[in-house]
């Protein structure tokens, strides 16, 4: 695992996504399913009502025609009806009123066709063995299933028996299939809806748009259809979902079937449902993106903190190394200083003893005198080295000495004078000549001053100016470093002393200068503050307690 936070990142992402997406999608999906359920239920109810209405209409159609035939049969005699001219007139009158009879026939009790008007040549036929004839003779009124008969065309008939004082006969009419099929078809809706009638054997009595021609078997198991009006969802042979309403017709042999593909009817409602799903999907995507971005930002922040900590640790380790190096230097210097002091004193003593007269007496006196002087010079050289080492070591610990702050500022400025000239920055030192000496750590004060002056030069930029003033304020010494730069925005003013906070370009500043300076001033019992007003250049002020060293 190269990323220390990969695990945390994964866990956070998963938890946040669960917390955000579960309720949202739970709500969305339950809405979706409720939509679906409600729509389907609405459609089923609609189908049930349509099946009921259409079944009534079909029943009415059949009942009206049966009644008409009964009236005819009862109001006329066999001899009258056997007159084909009269029968033909009767048929045309009836059809003028769109009763949609194809033909009319009179059959006597023996099954012989006594009279026939219609498009087929059936005059000579005997119907003694025809099921509809036997049923009509038995029941009085009979509506047949569709059959081929002598004419070899699928049709169904209504037959009415009449008894008249010993002789009985049957009046039979064939119903115009087109009219009847149209009537049934009014029950179907849309491009995909289907409506048809099946008989007890499951044969189609009217053509089905999808299921085939009349007399074909319908894909329907009649034994599975319970009595009464039923509405069921099913899957058809093509694999589409279909809602099927079945309504038995009153004369008992037929079943009206209405098939409806819910997709077509529910289109607008489903659109709303799909829009809801789409919105849900978009919202989920948005949440996922937001979570990922937030987790990424959070992890970045953590990594940045780690990097800061690592840099601070490195800084501390570096300081610790410097301190131990300083200790070592001090130890070495000390070990050398003692023999050095002895050499110095011994040579000095020799010099003291051998004054000029005595040297003159000696043959090589001049050489001895010179050599003693040279020994002192060499001791001086070594002393310079060891004292420099000690100074370096002392810089690591606060070391109070009486300090001339003005002189310190001048010296500090001398370090950066070349930079200022090079960048054409005008530097003014307005130092109070009456400034008292203070007890402080000169080296650390110098570090702070250098830092502030460097910052000011950076802020002033080409052609700007920097002003450093010193003075006594109450019981404190104050040193101000002002620049002509853009100043510090109000929202950053609180953070500029934070470690690793920098406004400079990456690689230009560590962001440690001001925080270290701030820490140094606190350690020295003083303070470092930003004093500028927004819109003006920055003004940093160093304050030091005015504790003048006692004059010895």
């Amino acid at each position: 695992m190269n990323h220390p936070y990969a695990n945390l990142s994964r866990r956070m992402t998963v938890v946040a996504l669960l917390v955000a997406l579960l309720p949202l999608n739970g709500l969305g999906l339950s809405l979706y399913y409720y939509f679906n359920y409600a729509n389907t239920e609405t459609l089923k109810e609609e189908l049930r009502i349509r099946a009921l209405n259409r079944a009534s209409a079909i029943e009415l159609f059949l009942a009206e025609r049966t009644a008409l035939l009964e009236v005819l049969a009862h109001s006329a005699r066999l001899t009258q009806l056997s007159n084909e001219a009269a029968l033909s007139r009767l048929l045309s009158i009836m059809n003028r009123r769109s009763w949609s009879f194809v033909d009319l026939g009179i059959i006597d009790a023996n099954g012989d066709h006594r009279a026939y008007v219609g498009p087929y040549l059936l005059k000579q036929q005997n119907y003694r063995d025809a099921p509809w004839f036997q049923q009509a003779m038995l029941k009085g009124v009979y509506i047949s299933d569709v059959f081929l008969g002598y004419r070899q065309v699928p049709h169904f008939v209504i037959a009415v028996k009449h008894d008249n004082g010993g002789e009985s006969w049957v009046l039979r009419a064939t119903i115009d299939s087109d009219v009847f099929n149209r009537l049934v078809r009014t029950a179907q809706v849309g491009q995909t809806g289907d409506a048809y009638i099946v008989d007890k054997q499951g044969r189609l009595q009217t053509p089905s748009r999808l299921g085939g021609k009349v007399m074909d078997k319908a894909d329907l198991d009649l034994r599975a259809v319970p009595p009464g009006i039923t509405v069921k969802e099913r899957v058809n042979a093509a694999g589409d979902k279909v809602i099927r309403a079945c309504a038995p017709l009153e004369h008992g042999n037929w079943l009206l079937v209405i098939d409806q593909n819910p997709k077509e009817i529910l289109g607008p409602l489903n659109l709303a449902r799909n829009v809801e799903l789409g919105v849900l999907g978009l919202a989920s995507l948005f949440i996922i993106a937001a979570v990922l971005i937030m987790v990424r930002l959070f992890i970045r922040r953590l990594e940045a903190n780690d990097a800061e900590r690592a840099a601070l640790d490195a800084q501390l380790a570096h300081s610790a190394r410097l301190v131990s190096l300083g200790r070592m230097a001090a130890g070495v210097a000390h070990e050398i200083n003692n023999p050095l002091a002895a050499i110095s004193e011994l040579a000095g003593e020799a010099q003291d003893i051998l004054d000029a007269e005595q040297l003159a007496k000696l043959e090589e006196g001049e050489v001895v005198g010179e050599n003693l002087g040279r020994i002192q010079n060499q001791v001086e050289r070594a002393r310079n080295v060891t004292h420099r080492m000690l100074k370096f070591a002392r810089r690591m610990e606060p070391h109070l000495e009486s300090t001339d702050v003005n002189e310190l500022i001048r010296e500090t400025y001398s370090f950066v004078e070349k930079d200022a000239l090079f960048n054409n920055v005008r530097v003014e030192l307005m130092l109070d000549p009456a400034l008292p000496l203070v007890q402080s750590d000169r080296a650390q004060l110098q570090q702070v001053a250098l830092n502030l002056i460097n910052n000011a030069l950076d802020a002033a930029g080409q052609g700007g100016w920097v002003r450093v003033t010193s003075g006594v304020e109450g019981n404190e010494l104050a040193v101000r470093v002002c620049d002509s730069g853009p100043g510090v925005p109000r929202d950053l003013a609180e953070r500029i002393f934070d470690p690793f906070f920098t406004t400079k370009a990456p690689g230009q500043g560590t962001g440690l200068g001001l925080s270290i300076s701030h820490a140094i001033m606190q350690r020295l019992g003083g303070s470092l503050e930003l004093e500028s007003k927004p819109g003006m250049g920055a003004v940093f002020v160093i304050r030091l307690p005015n504790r003048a060293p006692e004059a010895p």
Partner: protein
Amino acid sequence: MHRTIKVLTVDDDREFAAALAERLELRGLWARPAYGGWEALRIVEDWSPEVVVLDVDMPLLDGIATLGHLKRLHPGVEVILLTGRASVSAAMEGLALGAFEFLIKPTPIEELIRCIEEACRRGGEDGEPGSAPVQGE
């Protein structure tokens, strides 16, 4: 110099202490060496010098401890501490215990003599001990 100053030079490095005493003598001061803390205390008892030049880093009884005893027994004696190291804590401690000055070896003889004379003057005034600044070099 009207008054002769009595100086005791104390260092575990015998050559140094002796040579320093000798040089001070040649410059018109009274000087005697001592080679350790205890010896220094004994000689101060007998001889009562005005100034003691005292090395900080010595075995058995180091300079700071010696200084403590000296100031307790003879508050009038002025002590100049010498050290090969520039330890701030030792300097602070020494000054707090009433040393007059804190010098880093090797010290040029002229500087040491100037310091001895100043200490003598202050000893005469019976000023407050322990408020002298640390010398930078």
